[in-house]
């Protein structure tokens, strides 16, 4: 047999001439493959289901009309869509700068020998896995009622910011860490200050990675419903928010609201709104993957 090109990965089992693959081996391989396939099939089933169910309602009424309890055939989700845009914009405005600055501090300034810096790190790892409904309690107890911000866009944005902040911090840190030390040393040796080095060399190189993480964080925030349930997001809203002090609803909350109705028209309406939500999320996710593939720098 003519030897073919040697490939580096994946680790190939040496192909020795011998007995055929035992049945046990084939079965094992098949069951591994099946466990991957079940997840994928489930995904396909879910997407097909919502598109088929929501198809009759996927028309312009969905984004031109307001929710209507009495006449579901004319109901739309405009207030939820604009509410989502409001809430997400303010979430981004607050959590992206905070997250990136924290990441810069932890990667470029913090001294790991100091206990408080380690505490901040462990704290962030923990926050990343705190159930989202606990953030809802935080929003309810501290931001909404404690600080007196009420059931507003501002409260929702702040709560969601805190929820996704760990994701932004962790992904930004990874992006900063990927910039090699030699770049920093070259800049410093030319007389640049620490911040000049960070601002002009490190950050530009790390931006694609940070952007990827930020988009993923925001797409998580868009889909989140549990904490907003506690912040009065379920109230029946038939107007668009006019400012950060407005009451609001968002798409996941509106969907939850429609699911709770038993009439079949509402099932279709919920499916249609889910399709809209999933399209938004898929676009954001593909953008993140595209960014990662096209702008990530190999040093």
């Amino acid at each position: 047999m003519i030897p073919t090109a040697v490939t580096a990965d994946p680790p190939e089992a040496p192909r020795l001439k011998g007995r055929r693959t035992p049945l046990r081996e084939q079965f094992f391989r098949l069951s591994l493959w099946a466990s991957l396939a079940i997840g994928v099939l489930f995904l396909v089933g879910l997407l097909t289901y919502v598109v088929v169910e929501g198809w009759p309602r996927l028309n312009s009424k969905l984004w031109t009309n307001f929710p209507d309890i009495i006449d579901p055939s004319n109901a739309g989700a405009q207030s939820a869509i604009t509410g989502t845009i409001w809430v997400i914009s303010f979430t981004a405005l607050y959590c992206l700068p905070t997250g990136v600055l924290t990441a810069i501090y932890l990667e470029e300034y913090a001294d790991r020998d100091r206990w408080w810096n380690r505490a901040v790190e462990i704290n962030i790892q923990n926050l990343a896995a705190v159930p989202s409904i606990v953030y809802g309690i935080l929003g309810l107890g501290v931001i909404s009622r404690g600080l007196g911000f009420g059931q507003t866009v501002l409260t929702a944005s702040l709560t969601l910011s805190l929820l996704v902040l760990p994701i932004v911090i962790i992904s930004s840190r990874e992006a900063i860490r990927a910039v090699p030390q030699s770049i920093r040393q070259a800049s410093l040796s030319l007389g640049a200050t620490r911040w000049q080095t960070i601002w002009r060399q490190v950050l530009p190189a790390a931006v694609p990675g940070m952007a990827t993480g930020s988009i993923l964080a925001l797409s998580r925030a868009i889909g989140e419903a549990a904490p907003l349930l506690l912040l009065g997001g379920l109230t029946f809203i038939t107007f668009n928010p006019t400012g950060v002090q407005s009451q609001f609803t968002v798409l996941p909350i509106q969907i939850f609201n429609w699911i709770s109705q038993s009439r079949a028209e509402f099932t279709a309406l919920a499916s249609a709104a889910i399709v809209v939500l999933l399209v938004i999320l898929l676009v954001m996710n593909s953008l993140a993957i595209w960014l990662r593939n096209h702008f990530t720098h190999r040093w």
Partner: protein
Amino acid sequence: MTPRTRRRRAAPGSPGFLRRSQSRWGERAVRVLLVAAALVSVLTTVGIVVALIPPVVDFFGKVDFGKFITGTDWSPLFEPPQFGVLPLVTATLVVTVIALLVAVPLGLGAAVYLSEYASHRVRGIFKPVLEVLAGIPTVVYGFFALRAITPLLQRYWPGGDPPQVFNALSAGFVMGIMIIPTIASLAEDSMAAVPRSLRDGAYALGSSRMQVSTRVVFPAALSGIVAAVVLGVSRAIGETMIVAIAAGGRPNLTFNPLEGMQTMTAFIAAAGIGDLPTGSTGYQTIFAVGLLLFAITLVMNLISIRLVRRYREVYE
């Protein structure tokens, strides 16, 4: 991260003496700004604790802690109120166990396949597809469980009483699917960290691929795999929307997954929707259950972080 330089004072004129320019104003301001940003994350934790403690203290002033933990009746918003949290805890337990029965085998199977069997191209296709599963909002999963999975189960139930409209089985199953990517990606990371030489050694001794996967890679990556499962547990315990939609809102002390039941998270959501007045016992109940939830998931996370750190140390 730049290594910390310890400043040593050299005598003027001696070798090694460099005149430091004075630390600049802007540089200091930037540092202060960065520290302030880092403090936000700490303040969040403080905020969570501060938000939880006072209402909980007040709550346990009125409700006996022993009765709360061991009581079997949960109806805090009705008259007369009963504050036995056990039905919520057992419901959480039932749903979590079902979710893990789905997610652990499937997640680990997918991880072994992606790490040991799949070609580069197959991995490139399936990893992002699996990640999409993690990106779907849980309200959508809840909807799918209630409107698609439950009717399917009811129609094709083999013998006995079919599941109720709200049941823990379909909520747990769908939650399990949701957790697959969490477990698969962490487990795959830890399997990828197993050095190639271990595999090569096993192959050289004539092992098959299945033997290498199950007897070499799997044990070597075990702590990472356990960490993945623990993280899966903590996600299942904390998940809200799926159980709030598909498992029902009735506290029910049972281990029968075909019945409807209310988990801790579902209770918090349901009580939070009703606009309870600040300071009422009902309002404080949210915080008491929230603290219990926070404590359980915190323990899980600490275990998971510790395990991940341990397996990382092994091969570095």
